[in-house]
């Protein structure tokens, strides 16, 4: 099958792959087998094939990520043009926009790659600006990319590669998580790159719009072999018919039979009904005034732009999330009043991240919904076989590939007998065959008078399978009606990013950001730093201007000194200093500080009582015996002393937080204190995880309650640990791979002195003097 490589070469290839096989250490079989192909400079190459066939593996091998960052055994040879050797020459854009960044701000993010190449600091701003212009991303360098839409994030990832002068760009399913408009934006970018003469390799499932621009198609088989290399879309189409394209459409008969109910059809019984439902988090409203009536025999697709709150609408419909207003009723009964066991017998739900719903340690137990032991129920095995999972029956669900995990999650849900089937992106990441299997199963449920609701970005799926479509955008339902009707409503399509045209990119995405992630890098410097960074901030407190690492050390030293205070006179003087530091030197807002520290204050009151009632009292001191307590003023004063001592360090901790920019702090570790960049930037990248952590926890809670395994809250940490931590492991691995793919290996990662720095954090004599003061003054106050 690999005969395609034996074509005669007219010019020297840019990249040539000769009989390459790749095997991961833990696997017995090679995932990529005997692959041979090549392509020339300036070509746009598309790699396709069923999910799990090793496309990403092959691409990572091209980029050198395998075996440098991801261990695997590579046989055969990958020949690269001389221009592609050296860090940064091959840029890699990953599927998941969230886990490929390691900084907070756009400027820092692009500069990270440049720092790894040891580009001079003075050349950085220009290269950053140029790369942003190349991808047409009009944002200031100080913008926080957590608030970007998926499409913008992928553009930023491309800009990061371009800034490093990448000669070859590899994009691994860059549009997998994107709404149609963002997908188009990324595709346009790919076409523009080709026009600029860049060589681009794209791995895609949804490649149709790209086909006219593709110069070469490498098609991989399920077994990981090259099925063929085609030089045009036509050649490819004629060779691989009837494979991928037609599979997406269901048979016409199925469609006409399923035309079922429509929104206005009152004769069909109402199953699930939402009236006047709204959702908001604190000040921020996600959507309001949502009325939705779901009837038996319907397939409703919920579509809309990234960040419109589609998933949370589905969660509200399932009763997994409490709406902030309105009510959801199941067969006329308020959902909140139906006991969970009954509610989730009637409602099935599939999460976007399949891992969250796993409860058992073996696939077969997961499918059966109980520990089956050694007797393997025939029907369970049959269900597994249907979804191509029978040879994995004894494996751990967490061990499966992403596509297999999703298949298992969908299969377990489809095994239930429910009335309502709510699925969040059920076919995402599946190849055409599995996708069709899942969709047909859902169709069968719909035909049996069930109601199917799917959230999706895939408009082809909507067109082919749904009987009704709901558009969620701009904080409410923009459209609710027939599928054909939607495609006549240009205004709705445009507003919901379902059209291909390019809209203003600043708009969406803001909704999904987490406050937690932000609080890590308090806005002392970030907002001020625009194009030529480090413009003097309008007004910064003395502490805000202090070198962050130096300040951190000084404050911890100060806190430690305070812990040695043993009488009230000392504590009084030291507290005066703490108050000067909080309000005089770092300009804390007293009110915000009180709010933030109030839980701690409450804890300290309890503390006082403990001491008053329990301290060991020296002989001769008055005390009152009551029950088993021995209450004394002596103990009370002891308690006040202990509380004041520790509370002062709480205030200092707060001062540190509000007066320091997280990025500055991490960078200063490396730049000033010569901490290995691996550690400093690793901390930076890892803390980005805090933002997604809360969301992960929340979804996990919902998944557990859905499957009736919620249990007492006291046991949650135990049952949450495995899925949450295995997610954490995966995120860590992905982040590390993405950082290494951007040249963060070898000396620039190992030694602080072997890289350049975009953020210049000089340790001035003033910093040292001031910090020394922060240590000396409390020492003096302690002993005078």
């Amino acid at each position, binding site marked *: 099958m690999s005969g395609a490589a034996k074509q005669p070469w007219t010019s020297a290839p840019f990249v040539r792959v000769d009989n390459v096989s790749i095997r991961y250490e833990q696997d017995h079989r090679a995932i990529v087998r005997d692959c041979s192909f090549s392509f020339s400079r300036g070509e746009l190459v598309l790699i396709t094939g069923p999910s799990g066939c090793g496309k990403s593996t092959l691409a990572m091998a091209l980029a050198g990520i395998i075996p440098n960052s991801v261990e695997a055994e590579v046989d055969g040879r990958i020949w690269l043009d001389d221009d592609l050797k050296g860090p940064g020459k091959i840029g890699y854009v990953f599927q998941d926009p969230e886990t490929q960044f390691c900084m907070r701000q756009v400027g820092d993010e692009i500069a990270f790659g440049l720092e790894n190449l040891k580009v001079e600091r003075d050349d950085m701003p220009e290269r950053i600006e140029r790369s942003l212009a190349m991808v047409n991303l009009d944002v200031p360098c100080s913008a926080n990319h957590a608030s970007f839409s998926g499409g913008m994030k992928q553009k930023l990832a491309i800009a990061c590669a371009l800034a490093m002068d990448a000669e070859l760009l590899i994009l691994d399913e860059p549009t997998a998580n994107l709404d149609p408009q963002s997908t188009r934006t990324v595709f346009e970018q790919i076409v523009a790159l080709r026009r600029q003469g860049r060589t681009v390799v794209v791995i895609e499932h949804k490649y149709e719009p790209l086909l006219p621009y593709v110069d070469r198609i490498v098609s991989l088989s399920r077994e990981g072999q090259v099925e063929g290399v085609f030089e045009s879309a036509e050649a490819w189409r004629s060779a691989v018919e009837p494979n991928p394209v037609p599979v997406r459409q269901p048979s016409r008969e199925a469609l006409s039979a399923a035309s079922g109910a429509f929104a206005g059809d009152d004769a069909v019984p109402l199953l699930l009904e939402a009236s006047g439902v709204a959702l908001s988090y604190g000040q921020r409203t996600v959507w309001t005034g949502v009325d939705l009536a779901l009837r038996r025999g319907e397939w409703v697709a919920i579509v809309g732009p990234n960040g419109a709150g589609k998933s949370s609408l589905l969660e509200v419909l399932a009763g997994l999330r409490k709406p902030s207003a309105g009510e959801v009723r199941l067969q006329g009964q308020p959902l909140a009043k139906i006991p969970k066991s009954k509610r989730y017998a009637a409602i099935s739900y599939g999460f976007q991240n399949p891992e969250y719903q796993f409860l058992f340690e073996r696939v077969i137990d997961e499918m059966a919904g109980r520990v089956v032991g050694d007797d393997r129920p025939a029907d369970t095995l049959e269900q597994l076989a249907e979804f191509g999972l029978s040879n994995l029956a004894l494996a*751990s669900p967490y061990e499966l590939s992403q596509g297999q995990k999703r298949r298992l999650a969908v299969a377990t849900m489809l095994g239930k007998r429910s009335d309502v089937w709510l699925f969040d992106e059920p076919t995402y990441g599946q190849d055409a065959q599995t996708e069709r299997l899942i969709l047909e199963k859902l169709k069968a449920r719909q035909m049996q008078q069930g109601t199917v609701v799917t959230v999706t970005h895939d408009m082809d799926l909507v067109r082919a399978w749904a009987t009704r479509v709901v558009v969620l955008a701009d904080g409410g339902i923009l459209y609710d009606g027939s599928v054909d009707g939607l495609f006549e409503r240009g205004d709705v399509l445009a507003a919901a990013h379902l059209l291909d045209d390019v809209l203003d990119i600043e708009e969406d995405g803001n909704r999904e950001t987490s406050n937690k992630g932000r609080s890590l890098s308090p806005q002392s410097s970030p907002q001020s730093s625009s194009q030529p960074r480090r413009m003097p901030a309008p007004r910064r407190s003395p502490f805000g201007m202090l070198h962050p690492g130096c300040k951190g050390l000084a404050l911890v030293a100060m806190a430690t000194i305070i812990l040695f205070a043993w009488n009230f006179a000392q504590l009084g003087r030291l507290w005066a200093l703490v108050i000067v530091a909080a309000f005089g030197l770092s300009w804390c807002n007293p009110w915000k500080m009180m709010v933030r520290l109030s839980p701690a204050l409450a804890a300290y009151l309890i503390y006082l009582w403990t001491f008053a009632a329990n*301290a060991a009292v020296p002989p001769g001191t008055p005390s009152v015996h009551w029950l088993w307590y021995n209450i004394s003023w002596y103990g009370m004063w002891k308690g006040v*002393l202990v509380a004041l001592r520790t509370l002062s360090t709480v205030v200092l901790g707060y001062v540190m937080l509000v007066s320091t920019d997280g990025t500055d702090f991490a960078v200063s570790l490396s730049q000033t204190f010569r901490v290995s960049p691996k550690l400093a930037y690793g*901390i930076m990248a890892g803390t980005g995880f805090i933002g997604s952590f809360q969301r992960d926890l929340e979804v996990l809670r919902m998944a557990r309650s859905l499957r009736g395994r919620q249990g007492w809250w006291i046991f949650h940490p135990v049952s949450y640990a495995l899925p949450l931590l*295995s997610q954490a492991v995966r995120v860590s691995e992905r982040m590390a791979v993405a950082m290494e793919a951007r040249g963060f290996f070898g000396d620039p990662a190992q030694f602080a002195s072997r890289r350049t720095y975009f953020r210049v954090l000089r340790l001035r004599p003033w910093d040292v003097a001031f910090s020394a003061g922060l240590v000396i003054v409390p020492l003096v106050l302690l002993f005078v």
Partner: protein
Amino acid sequence: MVRSWKLRDVILMVVFAIVCGGLYRVWDLVYDLLPGTAYAAQAATTGLWMIAGVIVPYIVRRPGAALLAELIAAAIENMLGGQWGLSNMVSGLIQGIGSELVFLFFAYRRFNLLTCVLSGALASFAGVVQWYFQYGGDSMSAWVIFEYTVVALVSGAILGGWLPKSIGDALKRAGALRRFAIGQTDRTMAQ
């Protein structure tokens, strides 16, 4: 077999330390709910604050992992509004040293139930020392101090040693840790 840190070890350490820091913060609240006089109960909670110092070195098996993880977890707890402020950093430091010492003593070659339990217990002991000097343990009666110390050590061994080790083992069984030291040592032993 002491190997140098890989980037993925560093990031895993940070991410796990963050999860632990969040857990510590929640645990702070549990601690607050305990009646102030229940010293034994308070001491029994101690071990959980040692988790990071055992689970991370147990997985990545690198020198310094215990200390750094415990420090970062303490910093995160503080960021999330911990009630002990920068005293947390002191706790993180001395408890981290406690955990680290055990693994160091075994030259980073033994990562088993024994070393994990010892590590959790020694970290807990560091916590007891801080309790005695900073949080007023010295003003308690001798019996309370004895009781507190013993219960804290047992808690450290169980919650801070056995529990994180079991979580690490469960993650390994789930196949999540193949590319980390914990997953690799075993394979070489099996062959």
